């Protein structure tokens, strides 16, 4: 047995907990999950059936944890998991799954298929079966601190521009600030208006906040590639930064997987609870609005819809907040046919958008989102994840559709009531 196969099997065995045991023991291979997965519905390729993507884990369960597997093993006729199995599943798991979790919502037996796919991904990553693009991004995240190779020099340049444009000071490394904001790579490289919006909103709300020069990056390539150890290292940087500045709350940016990594999986990755609270920016904005600290004015007359980012809504539980925030500033808001926790993914989550090899497939599966948007005949799409935003902008442009995609935080910032009015 090769060393890399041994590593992969080691992870699969370590991940075989009571949940996985109950999942494989109850799955009747009905195939219902296929109809929930846009990689299947848009390609009609049965290999993209979600439960099929868990096959390496199921095979291990069958061989080592089931009666028949043990019997076959005793008779010397079992079909062991091979290196070729892992290699074969790399494309299915990395290119053909955005970890959107829609399959986990529909399984009649309650199998959290997405969770098991992540475990397979973890095994593949540790065994060295991951796409080049993601490996490179992860290496940069470990070495430089950002998957896009963004350094503090770049962040400082952005801060300078934002300060010039807004006339507001961006607080950096302020010890004892109440909130510490994080940025995703996309928000630094593509959407600097996010930081500008934060500056305006926090100035309006009069709350103390800061960025950390040690921990400005929220993107967690470790989660995207499926390597829990690296994911933990990247989370630890944020934890160290927050502890150093003694902040009470860390704000996850408009980035789905960053929120998952920090809010939900982070404590498990590093093996301890945080001494601070983590909120997604939408949660914070909703809280501030509810308390009357944040006041908006003006109404968008355009026909708008909201794209629910999977990691924030379906796997993160932030469903009402974006709608609460949109309601007072829109008069022509429409929901997509399937929205909220059953919304369709943009197709670029789970590291797919960072995986150049998956580009063609990503555009194919984007057809589902394209149909949802076209059906509504909207003037613009609002979302709250920089990755979804980038994927949808690319997809709409590739389909020659001139529909802007807006960030919700940015919209709120544009509708802030004048301070004197408050």
């Amino acid at each position, binding site marked *: 047995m090769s060393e890399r196969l041994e590593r992969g099997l080691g992870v699969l065995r370590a991940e075989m907990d*009571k*949940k996985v045991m109950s999942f494989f023991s109850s799955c009747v291979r009905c195939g*219902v999950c296929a*109809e929930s997965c846009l990689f299947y519905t848009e390609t009609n390729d049965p290999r993209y059936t979600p439960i099929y993507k868990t096959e390496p884990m199921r095979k291990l369960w069958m061989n080592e944890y089931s009666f028949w597997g043990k019997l076959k093993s005793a008779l010397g006729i079992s079909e062991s998991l091979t290196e070729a199995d892992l290699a074969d599943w790399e494309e299915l798991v990395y290119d053909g799954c955005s970890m959107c979790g829609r399959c*986990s919502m*529909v399984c009649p037996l*309650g199998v959290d298929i997405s969770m098991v796919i992540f475990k397979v991904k973890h095994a593949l990553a540790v065994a060295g079966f991951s796409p080049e693009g993601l490996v490179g991004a992860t290496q940069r995240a470990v070495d430089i601190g950002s998957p896009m190779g963004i350094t503090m020099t770049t962040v400082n340049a952005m801060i300078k521009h934002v300060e010039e444009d807004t006339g507001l000071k961006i607080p950096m490394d302020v010890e004892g600030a109440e909130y510490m904001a994080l940025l995703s790579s996309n928000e630094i490289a593509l959407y600097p208006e996010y930081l500008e919006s934060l500056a305006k909103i926090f100035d309006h709300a009069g709350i103390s906040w800061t960025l950390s020069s040690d921990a400005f990056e929220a993107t967690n390539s470790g989660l995207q590639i499926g390597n829990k150890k690296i994911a933990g290292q990247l989370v630890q940087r944020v934890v160290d930064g927050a502890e150093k500045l003694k902040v009470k709350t860390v704000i996850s940016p408009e980035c789905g997987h960053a929120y998952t990594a920090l809010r939900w999986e982070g404590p498990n990755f590093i093996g301890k609870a945080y001494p601070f609270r983590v909120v997604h920016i939408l949660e914070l904005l909703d809280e501030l609005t509810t308390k009357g600290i944040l006041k908006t004015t003006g109404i968008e007359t355009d026909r708008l819809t909201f794209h629910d980012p999977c990691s924030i809504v379906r796997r*993160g*539980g932030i469903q009402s907040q974006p709608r609460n925030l949109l309601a007072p500033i829109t008069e022509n808001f429409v929901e997509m046919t399937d929205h909220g926790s059953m919304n369709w993914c943009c197709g670029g989550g789970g590291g797919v958008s960072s995986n150049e090899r998956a580009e063609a497939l990503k555009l194919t599966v984007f057809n589902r989102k394209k149909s949802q948007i076209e059906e509504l005949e909207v003037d613009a799409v609002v979302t709250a994840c920089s990755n979804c935003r980038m994927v949808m902008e690319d997809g709409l442009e590739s389909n020659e559709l001139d529909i802007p995609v807006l960030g919700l935080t940015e919209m709120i910032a544009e509708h802030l009531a004048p301070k004197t009015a408050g």
Partner: protein
Amino acid sequence: MIKSLIDGPLWYFSLAVFCIGVLWQLARIVFTAGKTDLSVARGSAGSGAWRNIFTRFLPRKEIAPQIGIQIVAGYMFHLGLFALLFFAAPHVLFLEEHILGFGWTAMPHWAFIVASQFAFLGLIILWLRRMLNSVGRLISTLDDHIAAILTFIVMLTGCFALLKGFSELRLLHRFTVELLLIYFPFSCLMHAFTFIPSRAFTGAWFGRRGIDA
């Protein structure tokens, strides 16, 4: 001799394998290590678990039109089988005399016919879909086919036994039931029990994150 074997030792053996096997499989799930979630919960894991155990009996409306066949056939089979298992007159009598010591009103003959037709039709449709659909063909295992065929044979022999009333048919039915009981704990048929922890674990996960599931 065969009759005494099927009605005697084989019956007790199969019943023992079934009971011990099912309990063993459930105990393995319960006693296998789980991981404590260190993140701060937003909602209740307990209520999420309970909710998910029941809500998953119904398909989500967003996907129901695409899985209409599975829904209809699935309900036909499971409800039909449930009615046959617990309300067919010979079963009620058997449970009263040999296992429970008390009985209940059995369903009338016409209801038995309807229930058996539902169960047969549902099972056949589900199996045909498994064989004819590209997804079903790809993901199905030998276990799925054995379980479906065994269940079909048990139902078929049961119906023959009741409708024809020959003791040989009753004996054949009982023999196939014994085979099913022995196979049950080591097969996908275990989903009749393990769907509960499976739904509960996932529901708890959704519940603590405050997800609308």
